[in-house]
């Protein structure tokens, strides 16, 4: 009985990892480089579960192994929490709520030199590009160009302005960093809606000196289909 329960638990855990791999939903939680290790780990756990089932049912009685019978640690049952959550309804990717919980952004530039701005009107940027160019590469002429930024909407309570944002992961969703631009001039779309907003970038306003968030004087805002990987 105990062995069968342990085996079931293992199958649930391994199954959860494999399920995330097959459905592609793992992308909400980890980088795509983790996909293969995750599948491998899921398979190993499932294999252990199958062998466990087999040995639980094929052992004549559990009498001979009773000594190891009491060893399923109670804390193991906590594994049900994330596992059942994954099987029943996987939590969504981080969105507006996570952006608002992030501390102010002071990310060092990823590269010390940026390539010249590409051609195109409007210039299409991710929120991350826009933030980095405005804060660390303002001489590139980014502030004179018409730009289009794609991301999800983060309405701000009690304000006309809103953020267009995207979250970037280093490793998993626990270390997500939000890149956001404060948008004015067009009404805020619903929370977490993916949009594409066009306008002119401005340096962070002095009022928000401790929050170096670039601004966008927007002209138009339109729908944008959610990218396969919601993170940047």
């Amino acid at each position, binding site marked *: 009985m105990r062995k069968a329960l342990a085996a079931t638990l293992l199958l649930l855990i391994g199954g959860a990892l494999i399920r995330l791999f097959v459905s592609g939903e793992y992308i909400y939680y980890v980088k795509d480089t983790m996909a293969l290790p995750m599948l491998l*780990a899921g398979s190993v756990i499932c294999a252990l579960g199958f062998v*466990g089932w087999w040995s639980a049912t094929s052992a004549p009685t559990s009498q001979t192994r009773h000594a190891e019978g009491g060893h399923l640690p109670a804390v193991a049952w*906590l594994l049900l929490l994330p596992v059942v959550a994954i099987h029943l309804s996987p939590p969504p990717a981080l969105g507006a709520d996570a952006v608002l919980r992030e501390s102010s*952004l*002071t990310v060092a530039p990823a590269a010390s030199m940026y390539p010249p701005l590409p051609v195109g009107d409007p210039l299409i940027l991710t929120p991350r590009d826009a933030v980095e160019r405005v804060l660390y590469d303002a001489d590139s002429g980014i502030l004179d160009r018409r730009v289009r930024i794609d991301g999800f909407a983060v309405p701000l309570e009690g304000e006309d302005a809103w953020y267009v944002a995207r979250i970037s992961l280093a490793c998993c969703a626990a270390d997500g960093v939000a890149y956001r631009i404060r948008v004015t001039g067009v009404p805020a779309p619903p929370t977490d809606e993916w949009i594409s907003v066009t306008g002119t970038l401005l340096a962070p306003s002095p009022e928000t000196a401790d929050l170096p968030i670039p601004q966008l004087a927007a002209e138009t805002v339109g729908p944008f289909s959610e990218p396969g990987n919601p993170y940047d």
Partner: protein
Amino acid sequence: MSAPTGTPAQSSDDTPRPRGALVRVVRDPLFGPGVLAVGLLVALLARPWIVQQFDAPGFSTWSTIFVAIVVQALPFLVLGVVLSAVLTVYVPARWLTRALPRNRYAAVGVAGLSGAVLPGCECASVPLAGGFLRQGVPQAAALAFLLSAPAINPVVLIATAVAFPGNPEMVLARFVASLAAACTVALLWARFFPERLLRLPADPAGGGSRRDRFRATTEHDLLHAGGFLVVGAGIAATVNVVVPPGVVDAVASQPLLAVLVLALLAVIIAICSEADAFVAASFSAFSPTAQLAFMVVGPMVDVKLIAMQVGWFGRRFAARFAPLTFVVAVVMALAVGAVLL
């Protein structure tokens, strides 16, 4: 922070069984887990209701981060558990002990340096260190490995180099400070704390064929360490969601306080050692020494690790080992930072 929950580290039911029917049900090893499982299922089925009761978007952010930490850590945990079971079952006892130098200092140094070989994060090193201990490796050496492996392996060092472009001193500083802290903690522990504080979980596989023992060991270790990983992930996700934005940035300009705050932050947010360099780099308002402290402390002491150490080595061990490690890691980061950064 030392004993994150009231979960018993080990439920020993070797006491003689009473005979009454009700008592037998309650004493049954399945009773507690059964109650827990039913409770969890009810909680999950009632999730829509729970979500309504609490701040819904916050709850959703919490569960995403919670699941993410578990999903990110499980592959490394499996790697560590399987390697540890191979050690326990297939490597002849005392073989590792004989491979280590006899001299204690040399043994600790070798064990600390060999941490560089394990490519992974801290979730793999706890079970592996447990495997070493089952093999009879001296405590000091196993602990040096436990602390150094997640911090100085090539994957982590490369990630650090990428996160701090044009700043190779940071990589060197991280390597030196982490290795020095790991060896110092191990030696201090061996010198000042009695060995019996560390209580290994019994090798679950008593007899049987090697294959049986391998299966039983991996199953037990995976479920045991996995359960504690979930406890740690829950705490870390809660801190992630609850700590108000900007709190940390406020102290960036005060040199010593900044180091301490980033070191404490490393403990409570418990990010994977492969990712912590990117997070450290994002604290650009802080001094390089504070960033270094974040990267030295994080792989050695964090809530997730403490929970797993409670599970593997006992609560009494973790309650002393974690604070000791924290202090030594911060001191090493300060010293190395002063010289190199």
